[in-house]
């Protein structure tokens, strides 16, 4: 069966590899090397895995735990049994899914914060069990009650079950020398198949049932939807996807250790979904790609990458609750959403300009901007102050009050900066310059969007 599947898949993978080659070269020039691209794609899969549960109204943070399970299954299979990527993927997803069933059945009775903290607890338990797996395995093997059950299971993991010490997960050191099987093409094809599946799910009976459960569980139940069943299905699917991402991750990095799959990873996964937006299945994919790429793109901010992740998470949840995809969805433009949208665009611009003015000063003695610093910082502070003032004094829905000054400020800023570059006042065009430009353009855009000319 594997042979047939292989012969079917191989041409597709080859084609994908060929198509990807120029794109990868292109991306490498901006600082996104192939390993980074692989991580972006893996994180997109992880974003989808949490989206599946969130889409069903369940706030589960267990995905890092399932990812760990997938990663360790994949690593053990390839290092001890010489499994291929396909086999590792299959068994990794299967094990994660099977473990998810007994976990999900009781846990999914909880809701909201209770569910969130229970799943945090689950993730920690998984991490700790993996950390101490070798000691525990010996303990179980030698015990009278569990021995007969544990032996055959352990036999699947190591050759010599009766050794004095078992070396399976290797504790905090982690498993090393895992073969590198994951290729970018695999991930791209996996993600494409996943996207098709999600697209179909959205309009299927199951997808609608899940959306109904998210809206109101009781109403959904009263309409004859089997709430428990669908919630568990979503949970298991999410777990399997996380497991798949774990397998890919293990077979791409050579080394895995339990520390990498703790609470921090769970939070990162959540951040992908939140950044991208939960209204649409594209959101988590977009979020996973973007949030992984941002620290790589902003090389000057590499040191600050943790802070940047946090700030992005905070800004998105406070100012753009629908995530990145909400910018693309037309409903945003209805029902006075235009002003809200304009407000957010302006805020984004103000924040960008402000950040560039405050942060780079500490990064590189002001040299990030590539021009004399103090001259412009004062001018910009005045602009930022004006913008903040305009933004916070506007009380009414009607954007007319501030759209003209905003447009003015934004356009002046953009023109000023381009002119400075043309005149040659700027030595080299660093990141800060572009961020500045984009910020100013966003401010102008905000003004333009909210300009109350007729019905737009």
């Amino acid at each position: 069966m594997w042979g047939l599947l292989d012969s079917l898949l191989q041409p597709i993978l080859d084609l994908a590899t060929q198509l990807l080659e120029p794109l990868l070269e292109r991306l490498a020039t901006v600082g996104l090397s192939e390993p980074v691209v692989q991580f972006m794609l893996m994180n997109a899969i992880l974003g989808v895995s949490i989206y599946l549960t969130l889409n069903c109204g369940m706030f589960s943070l267990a995905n890092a735990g399932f990812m760990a399970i997938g990663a360790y299954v994949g690593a053990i299979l390839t290092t001890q049994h010489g499994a291929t990527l396909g086999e590792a993927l299959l068994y990794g997803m299967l094990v994660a899914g099977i473990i998810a069933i007994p976990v999900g059945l009781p846990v999914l009775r909880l809701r909201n914060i209770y569910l969130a903290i229970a799943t945090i607890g689950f993730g920690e338990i998984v991490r700790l069990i993996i950390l101490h797996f070798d000691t525990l395995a010996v303990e179980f093997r030698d015990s009278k009650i569990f021995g007969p059950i544990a032996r055959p299971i352990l036999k699947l993991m190591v050759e010599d079950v009766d050794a004095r010490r078992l070396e399976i997960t290797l504790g905090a050191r982690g498993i090393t020398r895992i073969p590198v099987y994951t290729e970018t093409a695999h991930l791209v094809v996996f993600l494409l198949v996943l996207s098709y599946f999600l697209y179909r799910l959205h309009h299927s009976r199951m997808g609608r049932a899940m959306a109904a459960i998210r809206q109101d569980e009781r109403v959904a139940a009263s309409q004859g939807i089997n709430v428990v069943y669908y919630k568990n299905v979503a949970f298991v699917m999410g777990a399997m996807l996380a497991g798949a991402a774990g397998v890919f991750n293990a077979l791409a990095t050579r080394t895995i250790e339990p520390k990498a799959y703790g609470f921090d990873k769970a939070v990162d996964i959540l951040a992908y979904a939140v950044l991208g937006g939960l209204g649409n299945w594209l959101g988590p994919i977009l979020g996973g790609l973007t949030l992984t790429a941002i620290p790589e793109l902003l090389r000057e901010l590499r040191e600050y990458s943790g802070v940047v992740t946090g700030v992005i998470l905070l800004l998105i949840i406070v100012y753009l609750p629908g995530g990145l995809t909400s910018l693309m969805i037309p409903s945003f433009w209805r029902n006075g959403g235009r002003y809200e949208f304009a407000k957010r665009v302006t805020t984004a611009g103000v924040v960008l300009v402000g950040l560039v003015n405050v942060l780079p000063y500490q990064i590189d003695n002001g040299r990030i901007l590539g021009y004399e610093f103090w001259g412009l910082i004062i001018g910009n502070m005045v602009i930022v102050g004006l913008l903040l003032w305009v933004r916070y004094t506007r009380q009414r829905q009607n954007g007319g009050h501030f759209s003209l000054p905003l447009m003015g400020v934004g356009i002046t800023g953009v023109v000023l900066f381009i002119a400075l570059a043309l005149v040659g006042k700027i030595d080299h065009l660093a990141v800060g310059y572009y961020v500045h430009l984009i910020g100013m353009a966003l401010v102008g855009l905000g003004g333009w969007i909210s300009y109350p000319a007729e019905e737009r």
Partner: protein
Amino acid sequence: MEILHFLGLENANIPAQLMNAIWLGSLYSLFALGYAIVFSVLGILNLSHSAIFMWGAYFGLAASCGTSVYDGKCVELNHALWTAIPAAIIGGGILAVVIDRIAFYPLRKRNAPRLSQLISSIGVAIILVNLAQLRFTAERKGFPIADVPNTPINVPNGLDIEQPLDVARLALALVFQESGVSISPIQILVIIVAILLMVGLSYVVARTRLGKAMRTVAFNARVGNLLGINTELIYMIAFFISGALAGSAGILFALARNPAVDPFMGDSLALKGLTVIVLGGLGSIRGAVVGGFLIALIEVYINTATKYGYLDQAFVFMLFFFILLVRPQGILGQPIEDRA
């Protein structure tokens, strides 16, 4: 003695381990109380609480060591050791209020779902931990070893009793020695400060006008508003108290485990604090105290009486998981609605 054998405690030094559980428990309770207050008044699970705990320790360290903390180790104290404690308390409180204004106030105003507040608190936690790493590096810091009295109290060799204080110390040391308890002055300080703060807090909440207002807002913010309570002010006070408790727990932890201050010191306590308040009942203040001592007792028990000491964390989380499933309202909490 049968029961001791059954529990695997026949070889354990029970008074000493109990004392261990008590001081560890008072630390846990102190930390968890902050969680519980914010949860009961605002219904927010503030996951940045552990970051405030960590910053509290840094505030304390900076207050008594001066600016030398920024660059390297603290070699000598600039100010007396005790200044660290009020600095941590006040710093933690102010930090918590600032976090509230930045991360929770806009969401509150928009009536955003509770989960958004959970997510924004996670964002704050990430920012705070990374800022600490940037400012102080990931290196573990602490007070100068010689300045922190955290060796166990014991009977001095040379008995020169001149002052009444010496008599008291000697008596105390003798009592400890006879009962087999080994406890350091810092651990006693932890217990005393924790008890003072807990008693003070329960007095404020139960007896004063402010406490009444807080309970009203916790019951229903709109009712509080109608009664003329400035709910925003109450929220601010709740956050200040919560941050102050986290900061005090942070500095006490730093003193007791000296040197122990690094940007990740809050990580292990973050989830343990959650376990404590889940065990005691989310939002229940008395529950947080009881839960803290209970968790400490369980941990100490697993560490001393069983051979699974390395699994103590796993046991705590299993318990946490189990309690959530069987009795989500905790041992002292009210029944809740958040179940299907």
